[in-house]
């Protein structure tokens, strides 16, 4: 069926960009160390994509259903890149890793696992994570691992938009009404205790100089930039202690089990099935 039309505003194309299938087919095998690092990146993106996708059909306005859907779609895309690449080290597919690992085998940070809450809480989580991810990918594009660098290059452009989306909403909620100011401020307080998790160097990152980005190296820019936007939104930078017990070696939030129970339920009913 074709819909010939002179209306150039509907001319479509798939565009040119890296895909998960290409990573699987290019025949490159990640080392064990690189794969462990790729899991960090992939699991964060997967958990947040899963969380955000819940907003689709529930957003404050239809335009926002689409915006949040776009961001969630980007994140699931990033997860597919990183998990596919990680899987090459162990002969596993992205789906083996997403659907058939148990809770303690995931390596996501606690921030991305936190509940959506209201729109303010979601935007607070988006703000922190997209600002972090922006710093991260800005450096990962220089990784000596070409695949990680290529994924980061694609993801960085998308994350720039996620960051802008979060910042625009932070301003509107912070400056908008009394109620919105209160809600976004509460959202920031809710998410703030999980920030440190993002910036821990550990044996995985330390084993990959020049390949992995050392998380602690991102902290200064992150702190400065996030403080600026929070102040511009007339909000207060939360002064709270960090929550105990958050590293990626197996510490995780209560929420993770619920996220995985929902995400994995069907795939696990039919192990080995194709979809």
């Amino acid at each position: 069926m074709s819909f010939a039309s002179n209306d150039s505003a509907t001319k479509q194309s798939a565009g040119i960009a890296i895909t998960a299938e290409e990573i699987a087919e290019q025949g490159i095998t990640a080392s064990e160390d690189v794969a462990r690092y790729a899991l960090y990146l992939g699991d964060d993106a997967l958990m947040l994509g899963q969380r955000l996708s819940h907003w689709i059909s529930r957003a404050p306005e239809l335009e926002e259903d689409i915006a949040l859907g776009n961001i969630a779609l980007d994140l699931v895309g990033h997860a597919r890149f990183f998990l596919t690449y990680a899987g090459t080290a162990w002969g596993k597919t992205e789906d083996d890793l997403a659907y058939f690992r148990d809770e303690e085998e995931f390596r996501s940070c606690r921030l991305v696992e936190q509940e959506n809450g209201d729109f303010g809480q979601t935007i607070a989580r988006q703000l922190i994570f997209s600002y972090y991810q922006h710093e991260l990918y800005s450096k990962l594009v220089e990784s000596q691992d070409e695949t990680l660098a290529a994924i980061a290059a694609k993801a960085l452009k998308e994350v720039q938009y996620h960051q802008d989306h979060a910042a625009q909403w932070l301003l509107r909620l912070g400056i908008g009404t009394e109620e919105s100011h209160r809600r976004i401020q509460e959202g920031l307080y809710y998410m703030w205790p999980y920030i440190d998790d993002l910036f821990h160097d550990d044996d995985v990152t330390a084993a990959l100089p020049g390949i992995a980005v050392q998380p602690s190296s991102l902290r200064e820019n992150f702190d400065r930039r996030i403080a600026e936007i929070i102040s511009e939104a007339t909000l207060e930078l939360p002064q709270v202690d960090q929550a105990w017990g958050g590293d990626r070696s197996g510490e995780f939030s209560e929420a993770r089990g619920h996220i995985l129970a929902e995400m994995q339920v069907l795939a696990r009913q039919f192990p080995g099935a194709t979809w």
Partner: protein
Amino acid sequence: MNAPQADHLKAVSDAALGEDEQAAQNYFDQLISEDSRVEPRDWMPEGYRKTLTRQVSQHAHSEIIGMQPEANWITRAPSLKRKAILMAKVQDEAGHGLYLYSAAETLGTPRDVLNQQLLDGKAKYSSIFNYPARTWADIGAIGWLVDGAAICNQVPLCRASYGPYGRAMVRICKEESFHQRQGWEILYELSHGTPEQKQMAQDAVNRFYGPALQMFGPPDEDSPNSKQSMAWNIKRFSNDELRQRFVDMMVPQAEALGLTLPDPDLKWNEERGHYDYGKLDWNEFKSVISGHGPCNVQRMQRRRAAHSEGAWVREAAAEYARKMEAHNAELIGA
């Protein structure tokens, strides 16, 4: 501040002022008889405007409510690829709803009014979305059968006499072509998978086939408004013509899937050159569309919840815009 759309839309009602109504009607009739297009600021008979507003907004509501059965499976999609596809598809549906609201607004009714009609239960939407999506195979059946029926309905609407509606349909049809294929592919994978998967696929087709045929609306003899819609070049084919076309397309597609269509009376009629098909349960249709389907209550509840829980966000953004405008005005004044 005025309602923002007011100026944009006011011209519509002013259009015929000071003019001879008959001359305007003649011009409209001429446009229709030439199979030309009617554009927003043209004079049009009230019936035409009302019919279109109702049809286009119902169509928009259907897209928006239609997001729900599929959104239910985004978080449980069985592979990351399917998850991504489904997210893109449901997101498209929000987009299609917006294209259609955008077309409906050009007829003079603002989106918030149309939306309120939906929330108040005064506006209808396609009854198919009141059926539950219980299994993953239902996502396949919705794509293949429901989107398939929708496309069958929509392709002729690309030539609808009302310009903005036709243009919205062109955009929607272009985007929807992937929706039906991905649904068919889901069912194909299932029907070529384990016996349990195949059973899941057959069960979904059994449940969605009848309601999908009903998406074309009541039989022609019970559809009195269709004639007028066709005379106005809004509709190009009758309900039964489109339904027949759809059945004829589905039979070979079901065969290619290795699944059966749940209709014992379905058989090729050499004389007519079409498939004969069994009677549909129109009592069920009437009951579901008037609010008594399996999920009517949940669908409406979710829509209302999204709207009311989002109110503070919409207000905040509007208030921010006002503050910024005031701030800028002050800077200019200073």
